[in-house]
């Protein structure tokens, strides 16, 4: 009983990091991959994530209490740099994308006149603050966020069904699988990336692969629901036109008995809690990895430097289209991070556990 209770923050953290993306970027990212039958790319994403997650967990389970840095650093200077540098870069890119998209969301949906630097400053400060507090604090804060905001978001989700027209599910089958040939499919693959944070969790709390997979089941169900709600409400062609289809769907629901009128604003800022959990943890992971690889660099200045880099980089992106272009350019990095890192973890796990058995 006691052991289960101590794992709850970990599982909620996995839910939280995914929630930040699911309610926010997932629908748009998946909708743009094909014209209809969107459950196909969604299922492929789920399979990819399940496979990579399996590799990662299989590796981590063999060497308990070790994170990415602990696993790769013994490989030697060059090899560890070759594995860790893309990982750090990818973490930085994901936090940049999440942060910048959230700022764009706030500007498009709510406060059109607030300058970008002010929004980015607020977000970066929040992320940096969270990262300074350390991984275990972020885990603990996430429990509170889950208690406060997850029910709100699930309520919002269920209220959307009021406007749903289930006939939009059809046509069900797209035999062309054209999404596999589209670059959008690969650039949208960042939606599966949150599972990588699990690789930084072992020093904070023990992981049980079965528990992690059980946690992923509702998340994957949520992915499918979050993808289909805009489709059911707006129809596929209209939903594909929207930049933030999920939030737009929430906006379409009118609940006369609520105190407030446009509650979407509250939903959007609830998502901010999970976005900051995700981004803060990524920043902290960057600090952790760099510190472990170069023990001379203390964690906090690295985090601060990463945050400043995020801020400057975020300001340099002129608009939404550039953000999408950036997703194209870093596709190779994503494929490396999503596939190669879990595979490398498994390989290291196998070697280390065999070595330990031999000695």
């Amino acid at each position, binding site marked *: 009983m006691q052991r289960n209770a101590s794992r709850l923050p970990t599982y909620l953290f996995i839910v939280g990091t995914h929630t930040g993306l699911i309610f926010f970027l997932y629908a748009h990212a998946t909708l743009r991959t094909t014209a209809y039958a969107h459950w196909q790319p969604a299922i492929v994403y789920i399979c990819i994530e399940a496979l990579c997650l399996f590799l990662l967990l299989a590796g981590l389970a063999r060497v308990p209490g070790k994170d990415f840095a602990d696993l790769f650093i013994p490989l030697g200077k060059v090899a560890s740099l070759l594995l860790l540098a893309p990982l750090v870069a990818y973490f930085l890119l994901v936090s940049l994308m999440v942060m910048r998209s959230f700022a764009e969301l706030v500007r498009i949906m*709510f406060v059109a006149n607030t300058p970008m630097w002010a929004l980015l400053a607020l977000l970066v400060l*929040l992320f940096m*603050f969270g990262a300074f507090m350390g991984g275990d*604090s972020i885990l603990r*804060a996430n429990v509170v966020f889950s208690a406060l905001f997850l029910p709100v978001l699930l309520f919002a989700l269920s209220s959307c069904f009021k406007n749903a027209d289930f006939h939009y599910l059809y046509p069900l089958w797209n035999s062309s699988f054209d999404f596999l040939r589209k670059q959008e499919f690969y650039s949208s693959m960042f939606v599966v990336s949150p599972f990588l944070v699990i690789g930084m969790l072992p020093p904070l709390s023990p992981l049980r692969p079965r528990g992690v997979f059980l946690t992923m089941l509702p998340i994957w169900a949520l992915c499918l629901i979050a993808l289909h709600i805009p489709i059911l409400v707006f129809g596929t062609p209209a939903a594909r036109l929207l930049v933030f289809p999920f939030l737009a769907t929430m906006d379409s629901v009118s609940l006369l008995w609520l105190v*407030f009128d446009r509650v979407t604003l509250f939903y959007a*800022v609830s998502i901010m809690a999970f976005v900051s959990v995700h981004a803060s943890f990524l920043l902290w992971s960057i600090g952790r990895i760099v510190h472990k690889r170069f023990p001379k660099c203390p964690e906090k200045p690295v985090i601060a430097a990463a945050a400043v880099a995020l801020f400057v980089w975020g300001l340099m992106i002129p608009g939404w289209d550039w953000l999408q272009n950036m997703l194209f350019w870093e596709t190779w990095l994503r494929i490396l991070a999503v596939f190669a890192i879990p595979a490398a973890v498994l390989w290291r796990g196998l070697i280390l556990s065999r070595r330990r058995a031999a000695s």
Partner: protein
Amino acid sequence: MRANSCLADLQQAAASREDLKIEPFVLRGTPVWIAGLESLIQRAKTRYELLGSLPEISCSFEELAARLFGEFVPSSELLGKLLQGKLAVLSGDGSRAFVLESEPAELRRTVDLPKEETIVGAPSAAFVEDLNTNVGLLRQTFVSADLQVEYVSLRGSADKRIALVYLRSEAPPQLVTEIRGRLSAPSRQPVRSDQALISQLTGTRWQLISPLYNTELPEQVSEELLRGRVAILMDGQCTAAITPSSIRNFFAMFSDKHFPYPLMLAIRAVRIIGLLVALLLPGLYVALIAVNPETLKIELALSLAMSRLDVPYPAFIEIIIMLFIIEMVVEASLRLPKSIGPTITMVGGIILGQAVVQAQLVSNLVIIVLAATTIANFTLVGFNNALTIRFLKYSIVCLSAMYGVMGLFAGLIGFILYMSSIRWYGIPFMRLR
């Protein structure tokens, strides 16, 4: 010179301490001097008891000391003992002295009802200023051999006596060692207040949330002791400081457990909502009025616009002014004599409730928001905790004024992150146990 050093020292000390009385006395045939501070000791009663406790045979000075349970002390420590309210008996030549317990002057309050934490339907003895009484109250509430009491000696003459109370079976030994170690470390300032105690325990004075949870209810202390915490009792303080504090202390009290379980949950839910309201409501007002009015229903938006029509300054200034006035009302009424308190309440109420609105200096919704915030603030358990929230709401108001609802939530998220990051002696603050 050397022969009557004790007497001479005392006489010298008495020159600048006129309440120190030294008088010759004959105890069962032995001439002695007895000395004590008349401000701390009932002299007549002491003399009478001194004689009554001795058999009617003549005794030497040593025999007197033995029969009176006296403790011989060197001349250098004599004054210190006297300042603690002891009585000194000096030999006739003034060369030797022993000290013994005496009848204290009536300087102490008797055990009374709690002054700050009124509770419904529960035992209501509260701590008083005297350390021994307080420890006694605890012993009485919690009859168990498990209850450990340690007196910690702090360095420096101005420090007060401190008692560490914990349950051997519940409190983690490393926690007790840690606290004991921190308390006996050399201090920068005399430990006479909670603030000094906090800085002694945590090493910083810049902490918004206190590692101590102060309560004046012995019952509450025994509940916390059962949770494995340590109570710090300081002489002269009528509250016990329980450490490490946790988020629980914001909304849970032991006296809630006198109600059925579902009702207890409801009461605590009210306090949690109170916490959120006290923290967020003024910020929400500013955000909705100034930045995100689209979230208001059209009817409400129009009536708000009507009520704010002639208010000359922005919502942020409006609410900051009114919050300050409320803070001053609260601060003033805390220290006012009971007879004047209602006057201030009435004047404050009329000024805030009626005149300000009629003069259109603020809108009437602000008054409602303020009232709700203030009331919500005092639903929280513990005056310290309420103060923390009272203070933090200003930062949230500022963020809301800039970023609207987004700033409001950013403030809330930052607040939760901050609370999650706090650890006292390695134990996280954010835990429910």
